[in-house]
């Protein structure tokens, strides 16, 4: 394997409408970071069984017959999916090349997406996925537990794409709560070449005095890294304030630490990451 650690930009491609946007964003990240792009099509195991015979009787050779029947059904289905996947990857690859990304690699894997990604974790630098897979595209007001579980189990930045790519993002916003996770996120932003030359909005929602200081400290880190930085302190409901802010300032990408709170707190008050995923109109870059 020619891949070194944490080098690859991985884009999750499936049959959903987001696939084109995922390819575009992934190509943008890859060219900006000068990193290799890998397009992944994952063939999931079928959740619902293809066969429902409620006759409840078993006779001589039932087990062998059942195995044969299930095998041939899944074989047919997998063949079709393999073919479709290859076509999707071909399209995505073409698209990425047009966006200036040389030689994107194509990859097909079987199994659950989460397993596949965890296996590849070592080589992933940034993962780009659509907010909803092809199975759930019409459920616009909810985010699958699958995405949440995937973000939780993968310790790499995940860019969640939820709208078509129009132009390379110019203005980004960093949601900052002064906590450990978001401080780490700031360090990552200040070190990464991805954000060079972008306009950064460091936004904090809260009411305390001390937090204002923390915000200034955070801004200093970014300025030191040579990023053009604007600070904003907002009051009120975190989600609403963040949303109105990105509308006002025409923000094109939001960066935040993901799932930083304890599981107990999330259980009681709901997770901010989860709520932002559900309602945000702006692509989210979640840093773990």
């Amino acid at each position, binding site marked *: 394997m020619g891949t070194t650690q944490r080098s690859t930009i991985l884009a999750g491609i499936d049959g959903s409408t987001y696939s084109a946007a995922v390819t575009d964003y992934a190509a943008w990240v890859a060219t900006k970071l000068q990193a290799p792009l890998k397009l992944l099509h994952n063939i999931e*195991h079928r*959740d*619902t*069984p293809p*066969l*429902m*015979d*409620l*006759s*409840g*009787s*078993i*006779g*001589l*050779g*039932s*087990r*062998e017959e*059942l*195995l044969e029947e*299930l095998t041939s059904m*899944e074989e047919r289905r997998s063949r079709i999916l393999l073919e479709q996947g290859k076509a999707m990857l071909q399209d995505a690859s073409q698209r990425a090349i047009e966006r200036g990304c040389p030689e994107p690699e194509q990859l097909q894997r079987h199994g*659950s997406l*989460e397993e596949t990604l965890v296996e590849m974790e070592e080589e992933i630098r940034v993962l780009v996925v659509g907010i909803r897979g092809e199975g759930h595209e019409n459920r616009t007001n909810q985010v699958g*537990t*699958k995405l*949440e*579980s*995937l973000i*939780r*189990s993968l310790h790499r930045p995940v860019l969640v794409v939820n709208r078509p790519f129009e132009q390379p993002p110019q203005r980004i916003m960093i949601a900052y709560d002064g906590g450990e996770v978001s401080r780490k996120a700031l360090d990552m932003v200040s070190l990464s070449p991805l954000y060079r030359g972008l306009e950064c909005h460091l936004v904090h929602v809260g009411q305390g005095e001390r937090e204002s200081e923390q915000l200034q400290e955070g801004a200093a880190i970014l300025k030191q890294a040579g990023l053009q930085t604007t600070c904003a302190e907002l009051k009120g409901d975190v989600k609403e304030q963040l949303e109105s802010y990105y509308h006002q300032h025409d923000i094109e990408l939001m960066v935040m630490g993901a799932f930083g709170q304890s599981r107990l707190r999330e259980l009681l008050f709901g997770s901010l990451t989860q709520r932002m995923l559900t309602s945000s109109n702006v692509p989210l870059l979640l840093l773990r």
Partner: protein
Amino acid sequence: MSLYTTRQQWLGNIRADVLAGTVVALALIPEAIAFSIIAGVDPKVGLYASFCIAVITAIVGGRPGMISAATGAMALLMVTLVREHGLQYLLAATLLTGLLQIIAGFLKLGNLMSFVSRSVVTGFVNALAILIFMAQLPELTNVTWHVYAMTAAGLGIIYLFPYLPVVGKSIPSPLVCIVSLTLVAMVIGLDIRTVGDMGELPDTLPLFLWPDVPLNLETLKIIFPYSISLAVVGLLESMMTATIVDDLTDTPSNKNRECKGQGIANIGAGMLGGMAGCAMIGQSVINVKSGGRGRLSTLVAGVFLIIMVVFLGPWISQIPMAALVAVMIMVSIGTFSWQSIVDLKKHPLSSNLVMMATVAVVVSTHNLAYGVLVGVLLASLFFANKVSHFMYVTSELEATDNLRTYRVVGQVFFNSADKFSAQFDFKEALDRVVIDLSRAHFWDISAVAALDKVVIKFRREGAAVEVVGMNEASTTIVDRFGHHDKPEDIDRVLGEH
């Protein structure tokens, strides 16, 4: 285990799981009653056990979609315990069985299943099918022709009903068999045995009870031999069933978690007045065939079973035994591995002998554990015998020095040690002997002892003996092979030095 996986295992397949669970519950009722009768206890003991084991394994088991409940393999092991000491000792033995299985789970004994070869598994499954069939014979001897007619009609319904268009594949045929035979028996007022004649049926939900036995060594002495048999057979059948479900659904399972899950389920069963149980091959196949894949299917099977039994108790007691026998014959036929008969011609004689020995021992002892033990031993012996053929010795004479060099190639161990010694010609009058072992593998101390004997014999004949390559040959005498898992390590140990 991630949140998503857990959710998927429970809610990934709701509609099909609920339907399949219902189908399974309907088939579990006659089985639980039949197995209680085999064990010699009231039907309610088997029914409570099936409810409890199904529900608990649904939650804590390691193989989603597998059905566990009261089983024939376990029931057969309890017969003498129940006859000689009564139900309370059976419940105590059930608790101990659960405890032993949990310990087995923590010791990761599930991994020992790799010693159970394919032929032994097939033998186990076939023996189980034969035992379930034989257990039905008492219901078919010394009875009027009505019973034969009813049983034959039942089997006819079970196997022909699925061919009916539309309804055939949406109503379980065993249910149709039971309902129609019960109606016939009630309407024409046949005087044949019914489930109600066999003992008490549940009239309430199960209640928590601690077995009423003295807690002393005497009790332990009585129940321990039964518990160990039950624990072993329960785990064996559960592991085999889990493998079958793995193959059918093309998904993995956690075998050690399943061991612990079976243990917890048996402890639960023992405390709620149920007999010990394990996974069921026939029912699990029915579940998969009906579309059941998730944990929900097993849970629904258990819950639906107890609801049916508690609310339909008076009707269930009217079911003629002939209908139950028909369902059990179906289970027996479905459990039997038909392929194994077809394969008899294709497979090597040693595999067939292992399979048939397993079946023979089980059928004669009624204990599946003995059968598996014999099968595993026999398979190991056959294996050792096969491997011992991979050894030969060449030699050449250098006339000038009156020196003979023996080159040993291949596997030397307890079974090939004698063959090894026989390769040397001690009658030849030589001055010097060189034994080159650099391409041999010495697997145990029997091999080393055989070599010592050869050296001594040559010395007694007056030859000077030199052994070459002993170190390389004996690198295989190690008890732990943990660090020989890389190709270069294996090459180093087994390769052409």
